[in-house]
């Protein structure tokens, strides 16, 4: 449990960090909260020559509202997500989901930018972020660009983040004011990571017709994904148990689902359906779930 030797440098600004990344010829890793990276180092599963510490860069902090989006600095910790009044007020599901990440230490150290850029398929934020139409602001030597989170995850721990660039902030779409949302997680009893985590955000017209539906799922697949097949089956419909069951049956359609020691592919698909069903029932049939 001892990493290989590495150099450590601290970046004071985003430009600084980008310059250091460029200088390292792909041998460097960014260190923010470190709660995913350091275990990998200790298992010697990764052996970067240099760690660039970005945890003190002030411009990566902060949570603010911009139009119909919340912009969250990449260094915002899970604990800050959980306790921010602005998040609690506009998208409580993000605050709730942040509360079930790891343990107290992880939540105080782990960051939203690090979590998404690390692309662990069993992490809790990716599904929630997908259900909130997240966009990533990414900065490189060429300047800033915006990437949609949907499509950002390419595989386990692999993303579309260009080399020598870093995530500076994440923005989330504020759901319609009448929308309801929930994140339901089945935690692996050993690791605490999601075996399945389903985030549903659903809005309805005054007559009950579903006018907004987002379902983001992490844990079961190679990458977190949006369950478009579920969303499509909900939109324009009136909620019913039957509708929910029909829609949830497609929860795994977009997932690239595999098995492991704890849960087979078959069981993961099953859990994916059950948890999607439960999430939708909580939102759409709150009194009828007993």
């Amino acid at each position, binding site marked *: 449990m001892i990493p290989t030797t590495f150099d450590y440098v601290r970046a004071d600004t985003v430009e600084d960090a980008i310059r250091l990344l460029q200088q390292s010829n792909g041998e460097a890793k960014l260190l923010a909260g470190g709660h995913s990276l350091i275990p990998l180092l200790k298992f010697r599963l990764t052996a970067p020559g240099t760690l660039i510490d970005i945890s003190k860069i002030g411009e990566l902090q902060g949570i603010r509202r911009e139009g119909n989006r919340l912009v969250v600095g990449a260094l915002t910790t899970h604990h800050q997500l959980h306790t921010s009044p602005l998040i609690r007020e506009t998208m409580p599901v993000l605050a709730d989901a942040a509360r079930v990440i790891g343990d107290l230490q992880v939540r105080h150290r782990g960051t939203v930018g690090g979590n998404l850029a690390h692309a662990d398929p069993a992490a809790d934020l990716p599904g929630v972020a997908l259900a909130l139409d997240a966009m990533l602001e990414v900065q490189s030597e060429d300047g800033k660009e915006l990437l949609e989170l949907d499509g950002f995850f390419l595989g386990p721990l692999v993303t579309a983040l260009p080399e020598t660039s870093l995530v500076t902030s994440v923005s989330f779409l504020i759901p319609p004011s009448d929308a309801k949302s929930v994140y339901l997680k*089945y935690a692996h*009893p050993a690791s605490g990571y999601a075996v399945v985590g389903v985030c549903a955000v659903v809005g309805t017209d005054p007559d009950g017709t579903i006018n907004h539906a987002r379902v983001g799922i992490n844990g079961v697949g190679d990458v977190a994904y949006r369950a478009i097949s579920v969303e499509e089956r909900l939109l324009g419909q009136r909620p019913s148990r039957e509708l929910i069951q029909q829609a949830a049956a497609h929860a795994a359609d977009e997932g690239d689902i595999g098995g492991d020691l704890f*849960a087979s592919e078959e069981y993961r698909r099953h859990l994916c359906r059950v948890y999607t069903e439960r999430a939708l029932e909580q939102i759409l049939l709150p009194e009828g779930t007993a």
Partner: protein
Amino acid sequence: MANMIGTPVKRKEDPRLLTGNGMFTDDMKLPGMLHAAFLRSPFAHAKIVRIDTETAKQYPGVIAVFTGADLIGKVKPVPTMWYVPGADLKAKDRSPLALEKVLYAGEAVAVVVAEDRYIARDALELISVDYEELPAVTHQEKALQEGAPLVHDDVPQNLALLWKAGEVPDEAFEQAEVVVRQRLYNQRVIPNPMETRAAVAQFNPGSGEMTIWCTSQNPHIHRMIYSGVLGIPESKLRIVAPDVGGGFGAKIATYTEEAVVGHAARELRRPVKWVEERREHFMATTHARDEVIEVELAGKKDGTFTALRVKNTANLGAYLSTFGGGCPTIDFGLMITGAYHIPQAAVVTYGVYTNTTPTDAYRGAGKPEATFQIERIVDLFARKVGMDPLEVRRKNLIPKESFPYTTAMGLLYDSGNYELTLEKALEAVDYEALRKEQEELRAQGKLIGIGFSTYVELCGFGPSKVAGAIGFQGGVWENSTVRVHPTGKVTVYTGTSPHGQGTATSFAQIVSDKLGVPIEDIELVHGDTQSISMGWGTYGSRTTAVGGAAVAIAADRVVAKAKRIAAHELEVATEDIDFAGGVFSVKGVPGREKTFQEIARSANFAWNLPDDVEPSLEAQSFFDPSNFVYPFGAHICVVEVDKDTGEVALRKYVAVDDVGKVINPLLAEGQVHGGVVQGIGQALWEGAVYSENGQLLSGTFMDYTMPKARFFPRVEWHFTETPSPVNPLGAKGIGETGTTAAPPAVVNAVMDALQPFGVDDLDMPLTPEKVWKAMQNRREGI
């Protein structure tokens, strides 16, 4: 101060440990100390063709690299220490570092000794080993099959031992009204105490003396064995177990790494430290259980048991670990009939070598497996004859009038009142109401299950005569000295070696009652072969029943001597002295008295002693009990199974234990909580999994589920006290009752919940997927 025994005194140890002032092996820092790291085999079975250590030796900061070949003649193989008689035992000693072949993934192949642990760890990657991989076998039943790869070339069929006990004629089963049979798997678990193993060795080249500080549950056993392995007389070898962060049996065994560290210190003439990484611990420290148990129970339609026959096919791993041979044979086999009157019983155990980490004792060692099979088959029997599992138990439990009771396997159960614990447990859960609730909830589609475990356990090791008869290479008596200083403060020495149990507190309570000295004035010394002449350590729930008894007897001897001195000073006959509450008084003469402290001073100053009384005030006892002790109890578990996902939720857990006289109810309850959650851990979550080619797949805490506090409801504990007649305290053992009782209570509860699905048995751990699939198969009519 009077009657400290039975009082829930808070642990004397805790302020020191909780404020970070413990002294664990890894806290040791000696001048000039070097650090060792072991290179381990990535393969489960391979020939070592070549090892090149040159590059590693050149790495700056590396002092030495040793391979197996370097140690030949300097460090002898480590032997097994339990020669189970009549079992045709084929013991294979372990070389300190692998020689021609590696036999399991994680076996140590080379050691680097360097200026710090980072250099040592880095240099491991500079050692190049050419392996020629060989076919591996990890499952005991496959290993027995013809044509299976041989772990040791000269052990046919990989059969390390074949042991039989008891006899049951075939007619007992052929002519029985009812016979139930079940194949059970008691899966492999990994102990994982909070502190991994560690050792620091220091050699004095002038005197030839060596000290090894290490994580040991039995330093005197380790001294005896390492003395032979290292070629250092016991008189010059000191083993110290400083603070030890748990063991659960894994620190009983004698391993190779500690010996290698000792040798490195001797050869390099500098102290050497090694601390096992958690990743190493998963592979390099003993595993446990891993027994395929086929059980047959015969009986009558009215629910009476008549005969039991058990076959255990046990996975011993690649070598016979120190006491590895005894767990699935003696410890398991003699306890197969459990708490029931079963007139006839027989057992056979196949102990099998495989390419896996060796197995050895783990909290209960054989008794949890024995309890598991009998408690499970009793439930299946009840199902077959259509009776409530409670009624079948009531019908067959050994009645209290029968004690002492000789079992079909020849053990003499010392004392018991089994029905009482059962009735108390039923009351605590309100059994009738619970069954009614279960029925109502079933009608609503909810699955509640109630599981029993009415267990008895063998512990308090034990009479040394018996140890000899069962091939245990050592004695199991215990040693204590109670030393009274001139000021009346007391130091107690014990040959047991506590490592988290709170023994400094419980033994102080015993001495406090005997001497009338406050427990703050009593210190316990343990875990150092230089301070304590001899002893056999802490395992087999023997610390209180054997070690505590020795303490009590030594304290009695101190009182006897002190009385004579008091009588002399008070100018009366010894018979006329009363001693109570720390005061010696003359019978019938109020006010004529001396305090214990005054007599302590008199004894040590020796200004005015009777002619035939020697100075000083201390006494020693070597206590060898006449029998084991047999704690027992009734545990009831209530679970709810999620129909959609198979998740098992614990609703309630009630434990009623009888461990004889309880010295400290607070410590006892702690032991129950710890043991029960560890037992539930095996039932629901834990399990070591190997791939076909011998890779440990569950090799980190990301995959191996250690139970967490949030998984549990509060374990409700009650106790009854049926004293044991075999020691002066009347105490039995409590450390292993939880791991013994809990697994079948949980599994029986889950099977009870699944009864509507006709599911009779599932292998532990009862993961959600297994439970869901079992329901699924039934739903689909398979």
